[in-house]
């Protein structure tokens, strides 16, 4: 009897602990997905490629600024202030879209059926890496994104020129490899619904952009790749606004940073004086679509009062002031509540939360083409291309919102009043590029550094970082997290490029 009891107890004990079937399966999450069609990741990568450039890039090219200090401090004060990761290309791209793109290429590389997706991912990856080099110079490339596959957590930095050379190769190869007759259609992407012809135009337009960066650094290389990009046999460049690489956002998926214009920071950001002045001086029809004076700018759109879009009334915030000293600025317009009476971006057109974000446009591409023709690298009629590009951007305004539509008559009269002047070709082309890139601070900044146009006056702010005082911000600084974590590789790269400061020029940025 006793023995039976002992045995019984032992049995209970064994039941409780030893025979645990499926113990190892417990650690498989029943509600997580372990495999996903990578096309959905491309859509994610596209959406998350939107950049927030209001703090540094836009103020540096004197288009948009805030007089306030600390986190808002940027081009207006020429002071580096640590930005949130999601506001800078480094923190936004590497753990965001690039991570997805690495995974897509890894998973589609050896799958011939998904070769188009593979090549789309390569093109977009190159586009993003171009921005990283444009912003920082040397950066992790060959060892980037390999945490899971190769266990590389602290990647070394590659030479910026080496990276760029590889980007040219990647984009040209991937564009050529895109196959319109592929059976599997990659419809679930956000730019063109999988239209391969348009993807080829995108690839060539990106290639043209990358190639033109070499204008001063290596003209021969620039010419070589401009030729490939513009060769109609390769699919050609973007040929209308329908080819624009853009995302039409929604209220559930609003534009990154648009809340700056319409939300919490709406009373803190203004259009800069040089930009307003230029558009005003040429009576540009875009001005009345871009800029607005609200009666109560600090309020929600519903209660902003009157909306003055009259071109002549627009007044840009001058460079080099802060919230205390701005009262001393010439023509100080005063305040309305919490806000100043300087022009702001129209919240119903470009500042919309559910508006349109452009990555690379027909207008930008045509302007680069115009410069390439002007430099004699390809053949064509500069004036025609120039005019088409200007009309292109004016036409693009309607893609932000129907309220932005500019009638052809206004385009005609603008071009008639401000005709292309071959003597000032480069200045005109690149000044138009500056206007065409409004809201795309990253590209406006890069092209300003590359071309030197428009001829802006250096920011006079007295408390500027001594490194950039009297000049322009030519580079972004690294995030503290990178400095403290990847210290060795970071230090080596910074020694190479001449220090982690905003005055260092990237390789293609020659004086």
């Amino acid at each position, binding site marked *: 009897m006793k023995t039976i009891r002992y045995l019984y107890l032992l049995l209970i004990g064994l039941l409780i602990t030893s025979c645990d079937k499926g113990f190892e399966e417990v650690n498989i999450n029943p509600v997580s997905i372990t495999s996903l069609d990578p096309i*959905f990741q491309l859509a994610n990568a596209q959406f998350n490629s939107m950049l927030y450039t209001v703090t540094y890039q836009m103020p540096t090219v004197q288009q948009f600024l805030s007089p306030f200090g600390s986190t808002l401090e940027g081009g207006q004060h020429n002071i580096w202030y640590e930005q949130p990761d999601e506001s800078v290309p480094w923190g936004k791209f*590497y753990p965001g879209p690039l991570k997805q793109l690495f995974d897509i290429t890894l998973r589609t590389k050896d799958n011939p059926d998904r070769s188009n997706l593979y090549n789309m991912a390569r093109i977009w990856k190159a586009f993003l890496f171009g921005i990283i080099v444009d912003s920082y110079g040397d950066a992790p490339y060959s060892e980037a994104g390999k945490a899971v596959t190769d266990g590389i957590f602290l990647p070394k930095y590659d030479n910026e020129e080496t990276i760029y050379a590889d980007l040219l190769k990647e984009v040209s190869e991937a564009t050529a490899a895109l196959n319109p007759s592929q059976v599997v259609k990659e419809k679930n992407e956000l730019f063109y619904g999988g239209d391969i012809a348009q993807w080829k135009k995108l690839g060539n337009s990106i290639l043209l952009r990358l190639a033109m960066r070499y204008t001063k650094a290596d003209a021969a290389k620039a010419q070589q790749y401009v030729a490939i990009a513009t060769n109609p046999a390769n699919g050609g460049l973007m040929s209308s606004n329908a080819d624009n690489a853009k995302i039409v956002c929604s209220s559930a998926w609003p534009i990154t940073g648009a809340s700056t214009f319409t939300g919490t920071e709406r009373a803190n950001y203004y259009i800069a004086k040089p930009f307003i002045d230029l558009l005003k001086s040429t009576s540009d029809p875009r001005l009345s679509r871009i800029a607005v004076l609200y009666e109560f700018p600090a309020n*929600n759109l519903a209660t902003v009062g009157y909306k003055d879009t009259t071109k002549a009334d627009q007044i840009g915030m001058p460079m080099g002031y802060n919230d205390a000293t701005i009262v001393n600025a010439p023509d100080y317009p005063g305040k309305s509540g919490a806000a100043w009476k300087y022009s702001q971006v129209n919240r119903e057109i470009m500042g919309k939360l559910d508006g349109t974000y452009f990555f690379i446009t027909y207008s930008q591409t045509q302007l680069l083409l115009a410069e390439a023709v002007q430099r004699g690298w390809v053949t064509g009629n500069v004036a025609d291309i120039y005019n088409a590009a200007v009309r292109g951007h004016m036409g693009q305004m309607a893609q932000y919102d129907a309220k932005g539509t500019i009638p052809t008559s206004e385009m005609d009269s603008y071009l008639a009043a401000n005709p292309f002047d071959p003597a000032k070709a480069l200045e005109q082309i690149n000044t138009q590029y500056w206007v065409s890139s409004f809201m795309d601070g990253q590209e406006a900044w890069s092209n300003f550094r590359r071309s030197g146009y428009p001829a802006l006056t250096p920011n006079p702010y007295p408390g500027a970082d001594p490194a950039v005082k009297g000049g322009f911000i030519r580079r972004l600084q690294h995030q503290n997290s990178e400095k403290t974590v990847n210290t060795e590789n970071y230090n080596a790269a910074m020694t190479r490029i001449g220090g982690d400061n905003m005055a260092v020029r990237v390789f293609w940025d020659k004086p």
Partner: protein
Amino acid sequence: MKKDERFSELIISFLKRIHLAVLISGILMISGILQASAGGTFSFNDVTDPSPLQQARITGTVTDASTGEALAGVNVTIEGTTIGTISNSNGRFTLDAPKPNSVLVLSFIGYQSARVVYTGQQTIDVKLTPEVLALSEVVVTALGIRREAKSIGYAATSIDNQQITAVRVNNVGNTLLGKVAGMNVTIPTSGPGGSSKLRIRGQSSFGGYNEPLIIIDGVPFDNSSSGATSSEAAQGRSTDKGDGLQSINPDDIESMTVLKGIAASALYGYRAKDGAIIITTKSGRGTKGFGVEVNSNVQVATILDYTDFQYEYGQGENGKRPVNTADAQTTGVWSFGEKFDGKMTPQFDGIDRPYLPYKNRMDFYRPAWSSTNGIAFTGGNETGNFRLSFANTDAETMVINSDFHKRILNAGIEYKVTKKINVALNINYSNSYNHNPPQIAYERVTIPTTLGTLANSINYEWLKNYIVPETGDEMPLARFTGRNNPYWTANKQFTHSRRDRLFGNVSVRYDLTDWLYAMARIGQDYYTNTEDYNRATGSRDLSPAPAGFNGSYGQEFRRFRELNADFLIGADRKFGDFGTNLTLGGNRMVRISDMLSCNVSDFYVRDKYTIGNGITKSPGYSYSEKRVNSLYAALELSYKDLLFVNATARNDWFSTLNPESNSYLYPSISTSFVFSDALPGRPSWFNFGKLRAAYAEVGGDTDPYTNVLTYGISSTQLNGIGLGSISQSTAPNPNLKPLKVKEIEFGFELRTFNGRINLDMSVYRKNTLDEILNVSVSKASGYNQTKVNVGRLRNTGIEGLISFVPVDGKLRWETAFNGAYNISKVIELAGGQTRLQVASGYWIGWIAHEVGQPLASVQDYDYKRDAQGRILSSAGKPLLGNLMTYGSGVPKTTAAWLNTITYKGFRIFTQVDLKGGNVLLSNSNFNACRHGLLKMTLPGREGGVIMDGYNADGTKNTTAVPAQEWYSSVRNIGDMFWCKGDYVKWRTLSVGYDLKNVIKTDIIKGLYVNLFINNVLLLKKYLENYDPEASFAMSDNFQGMEVHTLPTTRDFGINVNIKF
């Protein structure tokens, strides 16, 4: 309102809330006195009360020799026989008259046994003398095993019910503050429904959560807290919704034992790396007949205001006061205006008022009342007993529209099925409702932040005008849209958090022989937590909705279940001088939790917060499961009751780790040597001396599902396309192995002069190895972090308790000091890193772990300096220099001085405690600086600040910078905002009186009234304007950050306990 009006209002409120129990006790007291004077007694509850007329029986009373209190549950046996009984709740017992010259043995835990020879007397009254500080005190150790204190080779501190219930606080964990040497209790200033942060012997983990394991009646209990964190702050939910201990009624606790070292808790294996708190709930054990106990408590928390702001310059910016309403609506949180002159000045609400200072910002908060009423029924006889209790708590927070309610029902039943089989059941059900717990330590909809920066010329009462009548939106107060009007926040923002929790266990114990038993136990802890919350339409800080009305609403439904099944076989035999005690057991733990949620943003219909009314909806579901299987053994060997050796081994198998390395065996060994008993000729004053030593290892695992890459896809589409991505930002690692904590400790105990001078000391060293840590990696790797097995951390400390009884007689005064000094050191971090940043202050500063430094370095930037160390300036403003470490955010020293005076039924208790050796970085003072409230911002108001700095060319700075510009340019230079975190507080004063001495009635067995004050005085601090004890987060990785919390309070309370 004037101060005296406020006081009289307090008194009236108090009288209004005097509770039933107070009333009953008053009536009973009077009736009792009347009865006593009339000479009559009666009894209704004790039917077995013996009649003195019965001849064949003897009766007796057992009382405490020192206090005269009746002792219930005393074992009365006749030596050499099985005849025996137990004294009832009046201390009385009855026995059939034994043979003459029989010896009656009266024994009771905590008292010296008494032997009385029966010589034919009819009544035997016995006074039992308490053991000198309970020399053979029984300690509840791991797995609920009771052991004699002297056999234990590690530090353990027991806290009895009186210490828990004398001074009432809303979370029972907070009562431990100052009571246990080496235990650091932090009370987040987050309201009555908040958590209690308990840490024993420092922090063993880099990860921030170093909670001791809570064991209730032998079963682990989930004490995880939803304390304030920044992750939910944007939704207005950086709120503390309490921890597990909130579900425990202090009146249900019989005792708490704090097992400090891991040797003590090693049998709990992986979860005991931070020690354990063993809670034993009351049962009906030892009671006879039926008893009722009523507890009633009312208290009020009054606001402590430590702010000492400048009241010379009023609202405004850049030296200008508001000139119109719009201006006033821009500058409501800036005091960089003009000198006060009483001239009419526009206000944010459109009314012109004199430009004068108002020092009443803290009057926004109300005195917070709370009350707890509880009742318990007990009963028992020879074969079983039960206890059933219910307690209800209603507590207001200091913010209007914010309160906390909990109801706790506890039932315990024990039944002897046969002589050998004992069944026990304990069930605890609690229901709590946290209504609008205030958000703290954030900016938007955070009342303390707005009040901490509000311009000094705004009377808080004007803020009651907070809605724009035309739109229904929030009226602007400042250009910082996130500084929402406190009344808007309190009235428009809501959180409803409800929790139903059921935990308990059933156990069967079978005594196979008198030396061998087997036990099986199943325990479950189950709770559901439903929560819904909004962001109100029209809040100033919200972006406008693309369509409809802005704002958001969310619902969450969480379930948690932990099942523990144990079996235990125990043997206890003596062989001559040698004793052995062997316990073998096993445990299976299964923990499953899941959460269903739905968030919506923007609404079709205004102010209707439902899922259906939302325009954009995002549902979500998450699931988590883990299992741990364990086998363990414990062996105790003793020699002559003076040398004890305890060895334990436990093997855990973790489901969360790589199957190749998921099994680990942890040993522990401890020894106790009662050297006083080994000294033959020890002096008579030397009562007791014991040396102890222990070594133990325990391990731990990690969260489930950290081994594999998973994907997620968005719940809403963009242009008809779902957005997919890799879910993790932490790179998965399939090769994790368990972490290990190893600890060695030595200690000794001395008791001398019959317990008048006692000493208990421990030293320990605790090493954490292979901690499973999320470490930062370069973001260029694609991930923010990865989980790895690296990191070494050491905690070394000394802790001690010294107590004296200077006066012992009718008046007894006991004074005790306990204190601990713990120093941590980060020895190694992952991948050779020297700094691991774990948190940042909401506005300024970082918390990082640095190799070679104590845990939790509080860091911020220094001024930029030249080669000579002089502060550099550029255009009159400071520049950012190097990252500085000011010190550790974790206190090194915790200590308390406790005094208990008893005299004729009075018991006076006071506690003074301190913490020190840590630093604080004050985000609140940083804000007060850049908003012009600090007195420090007065210099330079006229003519600007000429800072004491040098230009790059070595010349002295002469540039004057306007005051506001300068004082807001010091952002991220922590130099001005850090200070020592040390404080000394006179924590409590309580006066209790046992009215049983006054009323002579049998109806009431006990009537105890206790008055108390909590937070009597803050005796020493370094932090300006705020209480250095105010903390917000449950994670240790925010220690050292002070960020706008609710103010601390001084609590006044009365507590009545009646036993029938």
